[in-house]
C-alpha cells in the first residue's frame, strides 16, 4: 500500500494522483490473490462455509427475481412477435435472452448487492475491531483466511447460481407461454435448447466465473482497505456494491464483443 501526501500540490493534481494510486493498490491486491492462491494452507472449511453463506443469502431473492423476469419479459415480447404472427418463436427468443444475457447479469447484480456488500462490511468491521491484526500477530495470514476463501467462494458459486436463475426464469417464461399459447413443457424446452448453442452456454459460464471473481475481490478489497473507524464499514459495503456493479457492466460489454467476434468469425 502506498500513501502520498503532498500539501503543496493543486487539488486536481492530487485527485489524479489518488486515482492512479487507487488503481495501483487495487492491481497489487489482485496480483497478491493470484500469487497466494496456489499455496497452502487452503482453508477448505472456510471456503465451504462461504459458499453456503453465498447460496443461502441470495437464493430467495434470486428465485423471486428470476421467475418474475421470465414472466414479464415473455409477456412484454409477445406483442412485437404477434405483429409478424411469430409468437411460436417466443421460447427461442426468451431462451437466447436469458441464457446469453439476463441470467448472468441479474444474478451478478443481485449477488453484488447481497454478497458483495456483506463481504465488504464484514472485512471492514474485522479491520476496525483489530481482528485482522489479531490474526497477523498470531502468525496467521489474514489474506489467505479472509480474502482468498471469499473470492474462491464467489467465483465458484456465481456460475451455479446463474444456472439456477436461468432455470427459474425459463420456468417463469414457460408459465406465461403455457397460459397463452398452450405449449407443453416438453415442447417448450425442446425449443429452448434448439435456440441456444454450445458457445452460448460456455460463454455464459465463463462470464459468470468472471462476475463471481469480481464480486468477491471488490468486496474484499474495499473491506481490507477501508479507513479505520465505524463509518468505514458502511462505506466499504456501499462502495463495493457500486464498484462491482460498474465492473460487471463493463465486463458484460467486453464479453459481448469477444463472443460476437467468435460467433461470426
Amino acid at each position: 500500500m502506498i500513501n502520498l501526501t503532498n500539501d503543496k500540490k493543486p487539488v486536481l493534481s492530487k485527485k489524479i494522483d489518488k486515482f492512479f494510486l487507487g488503481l495501483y493498490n487495487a492491481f497489487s491486491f489482485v496480483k497478491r490473490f493470484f500469487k497466494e492462491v496456489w499455496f497452502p494452507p487452503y482453508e477448505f472449511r472456510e471456503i465451504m462455509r462461504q459458499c453456503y453463506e453465498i447460496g443461502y443469502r441470495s437464493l430467495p431473492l434470486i428465485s423471486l427475481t428470476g421467475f418474475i423476469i421470465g414472466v414479464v419479459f415473455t409477456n412484454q415480447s409477445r406483442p412485437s412477435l404477434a405483429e409478424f404472427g411469430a409468437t411460436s418463436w417466443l421460447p427461442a427468443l426468451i431462451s437466447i435472452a436469458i441464457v446469453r444475457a439476463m441470467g448472468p447479469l441479474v444474478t451478478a447484480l443481485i449477488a453484488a448487492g447481497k454478497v458483495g456488500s456483506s463481504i465488504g462490511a464484514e472485512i471492514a468491521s474485522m479491520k476496525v475491531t483489530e481482528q485482522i491484526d489479531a490474526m497477523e500477530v498470531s502468525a496467521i495470514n489474514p489474506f489467505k483466511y479472509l480474502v482468498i476463501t471469499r473470492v474462491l467462494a464467489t467465483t465458484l458459486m456465481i456460475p451455479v447460481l446463474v444456472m439456477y436463475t436461468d432455470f427459474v426464469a425459463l420456468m417463469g417464461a414457460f408459465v406465461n407461454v403455457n397460459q397463452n399459447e398452450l405449449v407443453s413443457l416438453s415442447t417448450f424446452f425442446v425449443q429452448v435448447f434448439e435456440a441456444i448453442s454450445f458457445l452460448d452456454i460456455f460463454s455464459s459460464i465463463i462470464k459468470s466465473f468472471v462476475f463471481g471473481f469480481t464480486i468477491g475481490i471488490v468486496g474484499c478489497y474495499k473491506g481490507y482497505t477501508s479507513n479505520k473507524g465505524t463509518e468505514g464499514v458502511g462505506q466499504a459495503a456501499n462502495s463495493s456494491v457500486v464498484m462491482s456493479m460498474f465492473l460487471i457492466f463493463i465486463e458484460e460489454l467486453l464479453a459481448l464483443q469477444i463472443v460476437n467476434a467468435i460467433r461470426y468469425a
Partner: protein
Amino acid sequence: MPKQSSEAVIEIRGLYKSFDENHVLRGVDLDLYKGENLVVLGRSGTGKSVLIKILVGLLTQDEGTIKIFGKSTAGLSLKELNALRLRIGFSFQASALYDSMTVRENLEFPLVRNVKNLTRKEIDMRVEDLLDSVGLSKTINQMPSELSGGQKKRIGIARTLILNPEIMLYDEPTAGLDPITCIDINNLINEVQQRYQTTSIVITHDLTCAKQTGDRMAVLIEGKFKAVGGFEEVFHNAEDQNIQSFYDYNFIN
C-alpha cells in the same frame, strides 16, 4: 514483588515513528527484563499502542533499533517474523475476538494453525485448560457478542496464552471496565506472570492497575520515556509537572 533479572528480553534504542506530520515516538529507549511486569503509562494518544505494535511488526519504525531475545528485528523475513510473533502474546485493547466464531473456535484458531498434528483430544484439553485458568469454562460455546467486556478481555488473554508466549503485551487491559472487574483483570495479569513465567508490558492509564501489576513503571510523555522505575520512585518525587498531574488526576477522581 519485584524479581528482576538483569537479562533484557527486549531492548529498544532511539525509536522514532511519525504519521505524516504527527510525530508520535521521538526517541524511545527501553529495556524489558526477563520475568518483570513493566507498566507503560501515558495519556491517550501518546503512542503507547504504536510502540507495542512496532514490537510485533504490525507497524514499522522510522528510525531506531529493537532487539528481542537478543536478536535485532531489522530485516527479518516474514517467516522469521512469524516465528518471533509466536513467542509474543498480544492482548488487544478491544479484545479483538473473532466475532463469527465461538469462544472455543477463537482459542483453537491460532492453535491448530501453528501447532501441527495435534489430536482432537489434545486441542480440547488445551482449550479447556486455558478457559479454566481464566475462570470462564462455562462460556466455551458462546459467541463473543454474548460476553461482557471483562469476559471478552479474559478470553482475549486466554487466546494469546494458548501458544505459550514468553512475552505478553497487554494494551489497556482494564480500559472501559468497572473498578471491580479491573481488580480481577489485574489479578489475572499477575497470575499469568507467575504461572506461565511471562515477561510483560502492561499499557494503562489507570494508576491502580499500574500499582497492582507493575514491577516497574515507565511514563511516556511527548514521545519519550520521561521516568522509569518503581511506583514510589516515579510518583513520589516527581519533578515533572506532567507526571505529577497524571498522579493527581488519578487519585483525586
